[in-house]
């Protein structure tokens, strides 16, 4: 609804996106711009379409109409292979609940995206270890997800999202399952690490204290977005 000025070309653009699940219309003309290196908080009431929009931006869901562009490339016009290469290489994900693989150790979990991208085992584990260290959970390397606390698990999940140094990280209520102090600690480490790598973060949250770590907010309501203009 708001025109966007400044900051050059958006990295990721949703343009007049509509999407329905059968009878339910989740998005009705949602537009949003994500700029390189920014932390953008997506807020709004439950059921307003935040997760759906996030999944569209990440190329997980395809809009019924409207477009999602990464740079100047329309996601819908890419082949499946191109799209999954993009998802694996340029995008990272953190979700509300442990999406860690229970059979793998924390270190192996963080190394997994690198392995999938073709890195050797040693190299992948070495880089994974530095990320566990940055998230202050190096001591958990040998443990399995079932043996760590919720807050520790979320830090491991953050490390896994960042390990490939993606251009955009999507986070859907990443602190939703944590108490507010733990949630904030995870957020602090997450944002600091993302800023270090220059990643843009699209963060769905209903917690004002978490949103306060963002650079700006966009409010989703009834499947539409009211976007705050970027500074400058």
């Amino acid at each position: 609804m708001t025109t966007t000025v400044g900051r050059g070309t958006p990295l990721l653009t949703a343009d007049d996106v509509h999407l329905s699940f059968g009878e339910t219309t989740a998005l009705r003309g949602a537009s949003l711009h994500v700029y390189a290196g920014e932390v953008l908080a997506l807020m709004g009431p439950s059921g307003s379409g935040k997760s759906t929009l996030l999944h569209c931006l990440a190329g997980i869901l395809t809009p019924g109409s409207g477009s999602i562009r990464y740079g100047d490339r329309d996601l819908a016009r890419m082949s499946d292979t191109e799209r999954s290469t993009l998802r694996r290489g340029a995008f990272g994900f953190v979700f509300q609940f442990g999406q860690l693989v229970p059979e793998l150790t924390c270190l192996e979990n963080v190394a997994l995206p690198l392995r999938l991208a073709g890195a050797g085992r040693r190299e992948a584990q070495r880089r994974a270890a530095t990320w566990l260290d940055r998230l202050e959970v190096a001591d958990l390397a040998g443990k399995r997800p079932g043996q760590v606390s919720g807050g520790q698990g979320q830090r491991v999940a953050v490390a896994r999202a960042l390990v490939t140094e993606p251009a955009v990280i999507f986070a859907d209520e990443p602190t939703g399952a944590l108490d507010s102090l733990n949630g904030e600690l995870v957020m602090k480490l997450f944002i600091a690490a993302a800023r270090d790598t220059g990643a843009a973060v699209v963060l769905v949250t209903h917690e004002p204290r978490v949103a306060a770590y963002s650079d700006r907010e966009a409010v989703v309501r009834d499947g539409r977005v009211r976007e705050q203009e970027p500074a400058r």
Partner: protein
Amino acid sequence: MSVGFALLGLLENGPRHGYDLKRSYDEAFGRDRALHYGQVYSTMARLLKNGLVEVESEPGDGPERKKYAITHAGMTDVAEWISRPEKPEPYLQSTLYTKVVLALMTGRDATEVLDAQRAEHLRLMRVLTRRKTDGDLADELICDHALFHLEADLRWLELTAARLDRLAARVRP
């Protein structure tokens, strides 16, 4: 001073007598702080002096016979007041509540009032969060105190936003 704007706003739907204004005000905003007649008349006198209302004279004398109407300048002032977010500080909800109810009564977009306030709160919360991140333990504790209060305001704001339809059904004339 929000009483002045509230009374002015109530006049947007048509001219009113002083006692009528007081009754509407008490009904909408005065639940546990009803206005005194004296307060109504002194406020109206001030608004009159500032050209924000005018008097439609009627036969008979005395203040209770006066019918007040909002002027163009008055409407501009109300519009400006409603759309301007409040400086985030504790206990602003009564002013904010007045703005939201008035917006609904006068057919404005109350969601916009709440959105503007959310943006203003978040702006301050970002400043405090940054100060906290860069500061020592004392900064952290001081900023956290302010952040918890602002967060409480915001939660109330979201709750109000979620109940706007119900509120509108109650306050619309």
